[in-house]
């Protein structure tokens, strides 16, 4: 029965993904002294992947744009910090409850999504981000306002997870689960409904898809995943403040999804990898290189390169990194009989 359900899909990638995720930290430890720095970057990537995969379900699959995802992340982070450190709940409990609370906020944001779409929805969600920031500052008693909150490390069944090495396994276990889960969602009835809504709301409704239900559900899932990434961020970084979740971060998430290729789970993963690595590894190197040649003020280069990458991707590669990969794969599959016009 189960075999029958899954035999249409190639599942080889799952063990490959798990194997790769398990091996990378050991390989890094072997290769470089500064492995802790790279593992920290990987942890950030893992946390962001959880969010961008969720954002991709919302924006890429259901076609609902959100410019306020950093706010859902903030809700997850602050809720968990308060539940664990102030209410004394176990981390494992908060790991489930906090994302659900963030999801409920997503559900609420789903209401305006029933009426507004496109740019207006983007602005609504952005406004939501500002409201959450004000709310965090106003609820000073619990959140300590703008001063920020110290958060305890995750404690799982009596074991405290501390340090980048241990965090890596926690973050990436959840990231892999989220990737697998998201793949299952998009292959299911829910995923098909999301895509139908994205392609034509009228046609979807005519086929019997409950628009309100699925739109709100997509916000709920997406908000929950952003909340989960917030929980992980709070407990692995041990400090959160309103500055951690500024509106620029929401825009970064959208860039990650677009560069990777909206509407593909792997695209979100690739886009996140690409943008975070670009930001932390390649741009600084390039900056030092260019600094010796031209007198460009450091710091200015980053925004320039980001803008350029976005610009080039949207014009030349609208299907993103994943689209690029698919094209390459088809090219080699058909080689040498590939029709020329297809790839020009």
């Amino acid at each position, binding site marked *: 029965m189960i075999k029958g359900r899954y035999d249409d899909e190639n599942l080889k990638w799952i063990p*490959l993904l798990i194997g790769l995720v398990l091996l990378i930290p050991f390989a890094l430890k*072997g290769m470089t002294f500064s492995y802790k720095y790279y593992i920290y970057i990987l942890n950030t990537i893992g946390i962001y992947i959880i969010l961008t995969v969720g954002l991709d379900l919302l924006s890429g699959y259901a076609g609902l744009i959100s410019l306020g995802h950093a706010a859902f992340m903030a809700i997850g982070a602050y809720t968990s910090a308060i539940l664990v450190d102030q209410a004394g709940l176990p981390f494992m409990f908060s790991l489930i409850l906090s994302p659900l609370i963030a999801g409920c906020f997503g559900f609420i944001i789903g209401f305006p999504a029933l009426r507004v779409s496109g740019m207006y929805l983007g602005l609504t969600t952005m406004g939501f981000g500002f409201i959450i920031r004000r709310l965090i500052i106003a609820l000073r008693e619990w959140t300590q306002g703008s001063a920020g909150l110290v958060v305890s490390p995750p404690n799982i069944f009596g074991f405290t997870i501390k340090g980048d090495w241990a965090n890596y396994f926690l973050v990436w276990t959840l990231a892999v689960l989220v990737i697998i889960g998201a793949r299952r969602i998009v292959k299911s009835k829910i995923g098909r409904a999301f895509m139908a809504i994205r392609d034509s709301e009228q046609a979807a409704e005519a086929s019997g898809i409950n628009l309100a239900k699925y739109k709100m559900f997509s916000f709920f899932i997406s908000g929950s995943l952003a909340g989960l990434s917030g929980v992980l961020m709070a407990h692995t970084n041990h400090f959160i403040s309103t500055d951690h979740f500024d509106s620029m971060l929401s825009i970064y998430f959208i860039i990650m999804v677009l560069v990777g290729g909206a509407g593909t789970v792997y695209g979100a993963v690739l886009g996140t990898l690409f943008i975070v690595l670009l930001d932390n590894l390649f741009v600084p190197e390039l900056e030092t290189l260019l600094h010796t040649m031209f007198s460009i003020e450091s710091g200015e280069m980053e925004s320039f390169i980001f803008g350029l990458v976005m610009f080039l991707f949207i014009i030349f590669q609208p299907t993103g990194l994943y689209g690029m990969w698919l094209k390459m794969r088809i090219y080699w599959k058909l080689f040498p009989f590939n029709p020329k016009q297809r790839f020009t």
Partner: protein
Amino acid sequence: MKRLMTIIISITMFSLIGCGGAAESPGVTENEILIGNVQDLSGPMKELGKILPAGSNLYFDYINDNGGVHGRKIRMLVEDAQYNPQKTVVAVKKLIEKEQVFCLYNVIGTSPVEAVRPLLAESEIPLIAPATQSGTMSDMSRPAAEYIFPTDTGYDIQASILIDYAKEIDENAVIGVIYQDDDYGENVLKGVEESEAEMGITVQKESFQRGATDFAGQVMNMMKGGCTHVIIAGIVKEPIIIMKTAEAMGYAPQFMGISPTMDHRVSLAAGTAGEGFISANFAPLWNSDDNVPKLYRELCEKADVPEAMMGMYHYYGFSTAIVLVEGLRRAGKKPTRKKLIRGMETFNNWDGAGIQPLTYNRNDHGGAEAVTLIQIKDGIQLPITDWIK
């Protein structure tokens, strides 16, 4: 599958080659000490991000030209974190793990520094002169406090001193505060609330968002509340706009400011609206006749520092560099991070940095607790009080 196995085996081999820990004192070689600094080079405070390290490098160059510290030259790496705590964590991680710096210095911003506390504790790396005057820096009950050596008087203490002063010059003063609603403002509010409780007064509070350029609402509310003394917890542009807005509205309270508003550009840009503005300062004026300001101006002249760059923030980088160099001297000929911390903890009323005397010991990293008040008179900044605690 075979290819996959080959990849897996080669990666595993790589990991087995992995070898032991880092050298005993990271960042220290025979002739160099590597220092890590995190600034905002492209975010909301990017102006300061360029000026502060320039001031520090002015002094480091002077020391290096004169033989360095125990024969080692000082080299400073500056990372950009856009005043964002998350990016600061990444930058500090990079400085510690990848660049292997000996110690951290001048990391800018309250929440960025708060965010790196776990890293300081993990790597046992000292942070000398964080570029924030938040009172939380000297709070020894906070995590990693033993690694942080603040050089400035906390914003909370400054706010209390200003309120005390306002009440001293005018018994019936009605006080208001316009504050930036971030970590900086939060710390100012703490001082205000303490004063309210202590003196049994109510202070009118109005907030603004970082980067705001319109303060008409806040000024109007201060006017409605009948405030005679208004404390501004902003940086440079905010006091200028607030005072100009008030002047345009025909409202003329005594404006006062927390130390970041002490920059001489305030007096230059505010013009007549800024006349009489009082600000707190934790150092002698950079253009005064004290020894360190004199040396500062001499070196600026020698290095052809543009006049627009000179001023309180450039001087801040300069004077905190003196504190760091003194700490490195006290860490001995074979410095380690622990020795630097012990060295810093021998500061006892030390006043060689051109700021107020500093004291650190194992149980108290308070550093400084006093300010002088500076007033703009005829467009020129003049000290009007001695050190007040």
